[in-house]
């Protein structure tokens, strides 16, 4: 469906990544493949290193660390926002919502909305859409959109299909009303019939975690993972992205009456460099307009890769000037969404390490 928003903006952005870094070479030792094949995988997919949390770190830890940083630096006041929207697939608990956990830990005011949304690779886009809708309420002047995942904790270290690319991260985007009267076009599609392409089969109510769900199984291709672990149909996801994303972006640009040349940057979810460059080829977008370096530097942290790609590649511009950015997210659900948004100048745009 096509959506349109008006007079909304991202006013500031902070990304939080774990200081703990792993290299592909360290990961290789756990895979059941020859060194030559692993190095081939590294080269083709563009893997190098990734940031993962130490085992006990939760999304609220990353989020609270980031919020405290913003409060300490005077970038955000504790009582100055009216909604906290938390996008995550790795909540601290099934109940209560992680947004409430954060509200309590940070002593936030009671006169506010805390809302968790279970969304993955397109989560930043869904979060923007939800945040912009909330800002239509006169009482809601500022929304804090937190996107965070620590899915490395659910990926088997012996699964070459998913482990070398997984990353953990959080982002905090401040959303506010804007004076710019131009329309913000967006679009969104979902296909639950393919929901098993990316999933963690066990640990919910359908298949609770047990001794059985923790047993490591060969996926038939020398990757070992349990039902408690994240699994991904890599080829299926590749096809989904190559088939669905180019027409989605073409539609968005057509509705906005702009061409590829009018867009300063295409900031897309970062599954891996290989998939992004194939997308860029197909859509005839120059590689330097579509950054694809997040997985090799930080790993794929689901929806957080979009704000991370923005902060890593564009922060020096975004704190000074306005840029026209085409955002796209695609993955878990399956969900695919895009938005054309003018971003900047931001009051701050940084990446910090979680110790």
């Amino acid at each position: 469906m096509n959506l349109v928003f008006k007079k909304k903006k991202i006013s500031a952005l902070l990304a939080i990544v774990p200081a703990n870094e792993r290299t592909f070479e360290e990961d290789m030792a756990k895979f059941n493949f020859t060194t030559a094949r692993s190095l081939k995988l590294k080269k083709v997919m563009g893997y190098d290193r990734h940031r993962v949390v130490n085992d006990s770190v939760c999304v609220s830890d990353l989020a609270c660390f980031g919020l405290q940083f913003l409060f300490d630096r005077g970038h955000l006041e504790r009582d100055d926002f009216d909604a906290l929207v938390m996008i995550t697939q790795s909540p601290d608990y099934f109940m209560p919502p992680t947004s409430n956990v954060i509200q309590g830990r940070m002593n936030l005011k009671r006169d506010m909305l805390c809302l968790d949304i279970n969304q993955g690779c397109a989560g930043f886009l869904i979060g923007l859409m939800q945040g912009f809708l909330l800002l239509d309420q006169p009482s809601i002047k500022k929304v804090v959109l937190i996107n965070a995942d620590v899915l490395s904790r659910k990926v088997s270290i012996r699964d070459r299909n998913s482990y070398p690319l997984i990353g953990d991260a959080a982002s905090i985007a401040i959303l506010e009303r804007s004076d710019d009267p131009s329309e913000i076009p967006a679009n969104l599609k979902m296909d639950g019939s393919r929901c098993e392409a990316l999933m963690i089969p066990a640990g919910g109510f359908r298949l609770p975690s047990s001794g059985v769900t923790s047993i490591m199984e060969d996926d038939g291709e020398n990757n070992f993972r349990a039902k408690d672990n994240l699994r991904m149909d890599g080829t299926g996801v590749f096809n989904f992205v190559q088939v669905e994303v180019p027409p989605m972006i073409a539609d968005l640009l057509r509705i906005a009456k702009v061409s590829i040349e009018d867009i300063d940057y295409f900031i897309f979810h970062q599954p891996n460099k290989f998939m992004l460059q194939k997308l860029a080829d197909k859509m005839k977008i120059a590689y330097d307009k579509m950054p694809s370096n997040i997985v090799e530097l930080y790993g794929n942290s689901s929806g957080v890769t979009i704000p991370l790609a923005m902060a890593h590649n564009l922060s020096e511009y975004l704190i000074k000037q306005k840029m026209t950015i085409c955002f796209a997210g695609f993955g878990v659900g399956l969900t695919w969404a895009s938005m054309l948004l003018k971003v900047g100048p931001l009051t701050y745009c940084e990446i910090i390490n979680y110790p």
Partner: protein
Amino acid sequence: MPNFLNKLAEILEVDEVKREDVLEEFENWDSLTVLSIVATLDANYGLNLTSGDLKKVKTVGELADKISSHI
């Protein structure tokens, strides 16, 4: 189809492939190879085969025929 056979040999890191060669018997036949083939077919022929489609074919010849039938 000679272009595809050359490309397949390149992906499998062998000098050449013959129609009767069995895909699974190549030393480098794995999920990375399957993804590379899927990506090549998408980029060069606009074809979107799934890994399930590829599992159904046994030999290089059957794969080439399957691609021809989709083009």
